[in-house]
């Protein structure tokens, strides 16, 4: 077992190897919104639900480092890349060009106390952008490997308007490439149950499903249960937790669903 595998295990509950992770890196890419106007306050609530890990940018991780200081605190995952995608449809300061760059190295992530680093991989947007994304993912994986830090890759269909079956195909193909490049785990969007089941069979590394757009509380719980039943190793939910009316309650309920506790 190497350092990367040991650190990856810190993102999971030891008893079941499942992960309930909260994403709170939204302001980094799209600007602040509900739940991130005062993120420290929001996360104080979220932590009451005992998430296994929190995803943050390097700057935010530095500013609220105290939440990782106690025994039993969640693990820290650093969002290592910035990309313009979330700003393409922004009502304020919209960007019209797809671009992406690595904003954090494995050394910086380790020095912040991170147990893992995460990068996006926009697949099938354009051949040039595909190349850029895979090259950055490969560079981040090599950088992380030399420090025993797991790199989690996030394959996303570059075109959000494509048919569901095409999205599933893009995610599966990209997941296979990223696994072969050395990604330690994957954070993936949920298209449908069939696609997720096929993806789980297609790769051997852990699959964590992202939460996506804001939904009703009940729908969120149903979706999380379905994703876990379909073979996911965990969930990485953001807006549905940090923008919830009662973040502590939602966080606790999602923890119970992932770890099958009543």
């Amino acid at each position, binding site marked *: 077992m190497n350092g990367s595998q040991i650190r990856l295990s810190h993102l999971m509950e030891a008893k079941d190897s499942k992960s309930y992770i909260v994403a709170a*890196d939204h*302001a*980094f890419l*799209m*600007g*602040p919104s509900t739940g*991130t*106007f*005062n993120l*420290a306050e929001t996360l104080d609530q979220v932590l009451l639900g005992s998430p296994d890990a929190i995803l943050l*940018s*390097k*700057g*935010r991780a*530095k*500013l*609220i480092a105290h939440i990782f200081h106690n025994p039993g605190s969640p693990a820290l995952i650093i969002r290592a890349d*910035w990309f*313009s995608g979330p*700003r393409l449809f*922004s*009502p*304020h*300061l919209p*960007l*019209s*060009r797809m*671009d992406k*760059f690595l*904003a*954090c*190295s494995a050394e*910086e992530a380790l020095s912040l106390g991170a147990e893992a680093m995460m990068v996006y991989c926009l697949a099938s947007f354009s051949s040039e952008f595909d190349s850029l994304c895979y090259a950055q993912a490969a560079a981040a994986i090599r950088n992380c490997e030399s420090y025993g830090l797991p790199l989690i890759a996030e394959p996303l269909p570059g075109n959000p308007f494509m048919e569901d079956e095409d999205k599933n195909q893009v995610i599966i193909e990209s997941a296979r490439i990223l696994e072969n490049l050395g990604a330690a785990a994957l954070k993936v969007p949920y298209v449908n149950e069939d696609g997720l089941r096929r993806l789980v069979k297609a790769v051997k590394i852990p699959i964590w499903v992202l939460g996506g757009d804001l939904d009703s509380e009940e729908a969120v719980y149903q979706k999380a249960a379905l994703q876990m039943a379909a073979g996911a190793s965990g969930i990485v939910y953001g807006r549905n937790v940090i923008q919830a009316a009662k973040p502590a309650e939602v966080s606790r309920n999602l923890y119970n669903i992932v770890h099958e506790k009543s």
Partner: protein
Amino acid sequence: MTGIKIRLSRFSGLGTKLFDLTSGFKLDFKPAALLLYPHQVTTAVADIAAGRNRTLLLFRLTEWSEHQVRPLLAPAAVAPLGGDGSVVDLAAGYEDEVEIESLRILSDVTTQAHNQGLPVIAWIRLNESLYLDKPAAPYLEIPLAAAEEMGVDAVILPRSAVEKGTMQYRSAVARFIAEDHGMIVRDDR
């Protein structure tokens, strides 16, 4: 982290005044910190930068002109100049290329400056034409959050934007307001 914290603490306190010597205006008081170009380290500057209650020296790492951000000084050059920190411009609301390149520069120099224990202040250059007739807060919050998430230690905001609307976003780093005539005043309220 320790070096950054120590240097940041030197210009803490509401109302602390910095002076932008690169603005072309004349300095007629002793500020807590001076923002300057390397060639402006004259004997007079060295005199007020000496001693326990000295004026701190903050060096510009980028140049902001004609709506462009250009690299000016490597972060590694700040310590040999006797600097206590650095200032980087962050463009917001201009052309995509300008804004994205500006974010990339901010990310790179923040990492490099922090490796030297030097704090980084992001000077947010928000396009004023965007908020002439509406609240500036939703526009200002985006680069402000981006700068914080990139890891900067303090920000300088334009007075015109701060005055036009209340921000919902609670900034977690030291905040300065760029006034007229080269004056920059700490205001974390």
